[in-house]
């Protein structure tokens, strides 16, 4: 016997299918790893599923999921570190200079983000990728506005001092 899917289940399914791509993109920036990003979104969605009747009633399913996702990633008590493996050398394929510029800049940003703490990374993703205000970012991360500002400043400072040069990178000759 096949059980008919409930209305709530089918609405949750629609929500997952519609919002997973965007959630995974944010999670990818947070973790720097496809598998970890999927795990992170999966864990956050599992929590949303259990609270579905409540969050659906309140109309804040995506906000709830994102909040769970960011809290999972920056939980202050969990020294869970994410590492990324980079090739020792870049492949020597001949590429169009324009394409090479994009790829090199992407790789530089990836490596620069990896130097940040989970909280700094979360603040940058919320502020500059998701274009959230300071207040919204503080609300999602469950911290004060002052913390968001100080973490943003620290993250940008560190980003500038690492391999990713925000202003000058585009001027470099890459091939």
């Amino acid at each position, binding site marked *: 016997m096949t059980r008919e899917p409930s209305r709530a289940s089918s609405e949750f*399914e629609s929500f*997952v*299918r519609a919002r*997973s*791509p965007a959630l*995974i*993109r*944010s*999670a*990818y*920036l947070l*973790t720097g790893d*496809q*598998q*970890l*990003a*999927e*795990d992170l*979104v*999966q*864990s956050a*969605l*599992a*929590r949303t*599923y*259990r*609270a579905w009747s409540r969050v659906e009633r309140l109309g804040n399913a995506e906000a*709830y999921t994102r*909040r*769970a996702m960011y*809290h*999972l990633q920056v*939980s*202050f*008590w*969990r*020294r*869970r*570190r*994410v*590492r*990324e493996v980079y090739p020792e050398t870049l492949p020597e394929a001949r590429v169009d200079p324009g394409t090479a510029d*994009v790829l090199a*800049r*992407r790789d530089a*940003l990836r490596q620069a*983000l990896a130097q940040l703490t989970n909280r700094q990374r979360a603040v*940058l993703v919320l502020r*500059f*990728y998701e*274009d959230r205000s300071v207040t919204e970012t503080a609300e999602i991360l*469950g*911290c*004060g506005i*002052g*913390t968001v500002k*100080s*973490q943003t400043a620290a993250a940008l400072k560190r980003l500038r001092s690492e391999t990713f040069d*925000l*202003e000058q990178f585009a001027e470099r000759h890459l091939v």
Partner: protein
Amino acid sequence: MNSRLHDDMSDLASEAKSPDLYDRVLATSRRQLIRRNSIAGLAAVVAISGGVIGVGAIAGPADPGPAPTAFEGDGEDLRGRLFDAFVSPNLNVYTLLSRTHGSEPTEVAKLTGVVTQSPRLSPDGSQLSWLSLDEDEPGAPHTLMIRDLASGEDTEITGGIPAAATGCVNPTWTLDGSRLFVDRGDDASDGRYGFIDIATEEFTPLPGFRGCDPRMAMVSDREVVYSIDETEVYVSGLGDDATATPIADALAAEGLRADYLTAVSNDGELACVDTDEIDAPDGRTGSWDCDLIVEIETGTVVDLADLGDWSANETVFNHPAGLILHLREKGDDGYTIDTLTLTGRDGSILAEADWFLPSDEFESLFVGYRS
């Protein structure tokens, strides 16, 4: 610049693939529900049976052999008091729970995560330390707090811990639970690293200390502190400079490098270290914090072949029969499973507890064990 950063991040994010997660999410929820019910069922069985038998004892004669069972007996078990902690979403509250086999978990402390950092349970499970932050002044010194878990009374230790000093050396309990090892920052006039007596607040400097991740041990009736600086594991004691252990050289010979000192046994014989070279099972690039058990005196890696391709989230050495690993493994269905495993010093598996998070909201982390 912000627009450029947005564009760059969008470009990087475009690399991410978007698999269909719906079935995986449902399976995760179902698995957690099943596991929660299993633990509740086990608790009921044990209570009815007088609290001394495990699931192995109630299995029928046709059941397969002596596979490790949750909370089995003979002294090589996990029947002491387990402590685990979790953070609830949205509220960011740190909750410490304790449980014994066959009992419901008991909440023993709850801290507000927004202003709390680095909670640490004392070795005997009677006290909890943490750093209290001033949310409005992120750069202000943190206040070292201690809660007596029996009375619920909080004590503030005079003298702040500089915000910049945390992260590498977090306040760490001595084995007897009488002092905390702290980093008081460069500006401390009577020494940067050392022990604070929680009863008298007397500070005893340990000038020879170097590195991060302090771990306490008693070696030949002498209190020592192990630590890691880059890849080198050091040991230091009162009146001594830090001395390098053979661990880094021994691991280097195997092509390995330790970068985090996860735990050290109370007698200073074994350590658990994290390495960059070993990934979590299934080739994931993320890694948990404990990849190798090594003999400190020789740097030899202890063979834990019985565990297969393992990587632990946390390790506790103070079980009389061996060490307890909080393992996170990939199940046959591809999903992760948390297990506590009691492993003898010969690498054999003595007991396993397929323990489960008491919360619907967050996964909990094993933080302590008391016999």
